[in-house]
């Protein structure tokens, strides 16, 4: 198949000429997925840390649920968010359906369990090392969580990036709640689905390559930032 070659060529052409449609949907993809990652990290990272340092009866159960939710089917999340935000639904008055905000909400639901789970694993290991020190310093719960979050920040970034990776490549939920509206809610993944539907495989592949490139760039960018923060340490 020369479609892949054609796709690569087309991707290069779109990127080099800074095709305005491509720039628009790429920017929206980034905005939605980074926004969702940010919000989900604010919820998921402290939640993961809290689960690591606290002992309570239902703890194992909560962790098991959290791990199970990592596999939450995006289509189902999309459908639930759609029903909630539909004009006929309980939150319909907000008028958020088919806006980027609704897409962010759906993605937050999808990736928060991933971020919380990965963060929990990382913090639990760190907590094993820090346990005696923090207890002997008589640190409060909040102080313990803060310390663990800060010292585990590299592992936590991995947690956030795992969430981002799921968000940027996700299509099922944002197709339903965003609606793939041209110049309003069209992102890379929904555009790929659309071009595939038209049988325009070259264009679909080109957008796919742009998407992969974008994910790599964001990951590299964040790793670069975190490395400079920590000097020569790896």
């Amino acid at each position, binding site marked *: 198949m020369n479609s892949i070659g054609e796709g690569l060529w087309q991707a290069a052409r779109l990127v080099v000429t800074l095709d305005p449609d491509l720039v628009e949907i790429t920017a929206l993809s980034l905005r939605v997925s980074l*926004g969702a990652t940010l919000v989900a990290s604010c919820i998921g990272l402290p939640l993961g840390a809290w689960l690591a340092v606290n002992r309570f009866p239902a703890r194992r159960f909560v962790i098991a649920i959290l791990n199970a939710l990592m596999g939450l089917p995006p289509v189902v999340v999309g459908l639930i968010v759609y029903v909630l935000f*539909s004009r006929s639904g309980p939150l319909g008055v907000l008028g958020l359906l088919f806006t980027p905000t609704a897409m962010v909400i759906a993605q937050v639901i999808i990736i928060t369990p991933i971020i919380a789970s990965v963060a929990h694993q990382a913090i639990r290991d760190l907590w094993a090392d820090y346990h005696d020190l923090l207890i002997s310093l008589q640190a409060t719960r909040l102080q313990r969580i803060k310390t663990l979050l800060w010292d585990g920040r590299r592992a936590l970034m991995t947690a956030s990036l795992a969430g981002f990776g799921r968000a940027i490549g996700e299509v099922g939920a944002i197709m339903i709640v965003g609606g*793939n509206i041209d110049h309003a809610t069209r992102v890379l993944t929904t555009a790929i689905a659309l071009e595939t*539907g*038209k*049988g325009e495989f070259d264009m679909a592949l080109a957008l796919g390559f742009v998407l992969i490139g974008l994910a790599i760039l964001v990951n590299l960018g964040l790793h670069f930032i975190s490395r400079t*923060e920590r000097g020569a340490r790896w």
Partner: protein
Amino acid sequence: MTFKSIVLGTVAALLTTTAAMAEEMKMAVTTSFANSGLADVLLPKVKEDTGIDVQLLIVGTGQALALGAAGDVDAVLVHSRAAEEKWLAEGNGTHRTEIMYNDFVFVGPQEDPAKAGGAETATGALQAIAGAEAPFVSRGDDSGTHKMELRLWKAADVTPEGDWYKAVGQGMGAALNTASGMNAYIMSDRASWLKFANKGDLGIVFEGDPVLFNQYAYLPVNPEKHPHVKTDLVNQLEAWLLSDKAEELINAYTIADQQLFVYNAAE
């Protein structure tokens, strides 16, 4: 700090997303209307003449009507008369305005193993395909096209079932991709077929029976049921669709020198 500025930038970007412009309305349309490319011709002119930014949700007729019934769009443009009338009877919309029609064609392997091309009528062609048990891809998604296909099977007195009948439950494009991959027969609207870029070995095997005509209608969502719908804009768009200019643009739209839509709105 760099990280902080990224965070702040993202937050600022998120906050500005909801600041929508004034003259926007949402319309649910069928895949055949959007994939034909006609939307790309009409919508810029609508914007030019009325200032309305029509945002399209491209779905099947079934989902389009459901979005309208829930009040999530301001109007729908679909093609399945029976479903539209039921939808109106349930109080979901104000009225139904016929705008234009296109037609369906049977697409299949060019060598036509089931000899569907030799049939006199559309139902005859379906009987030939069923008789030969030649692979046939069905939309199977409750869209207008799917409903039309089911009506034709019924008229042909054939119950389509068996290994040869494959309901994919997807849009026109995805179904065409499947048919192309399996070298199967499929019913498609002419516009989607002509625009489709992955034809493979497929070609039109049967066309022209008047039962294959496909009427598109514009249906505004009922403002009494959903007070937030933008009735002003919906009426303006309807007036535009009924104008001579719309007639001219729709009739003049061709792909590969074939006229795709015939304007037939009543004056």
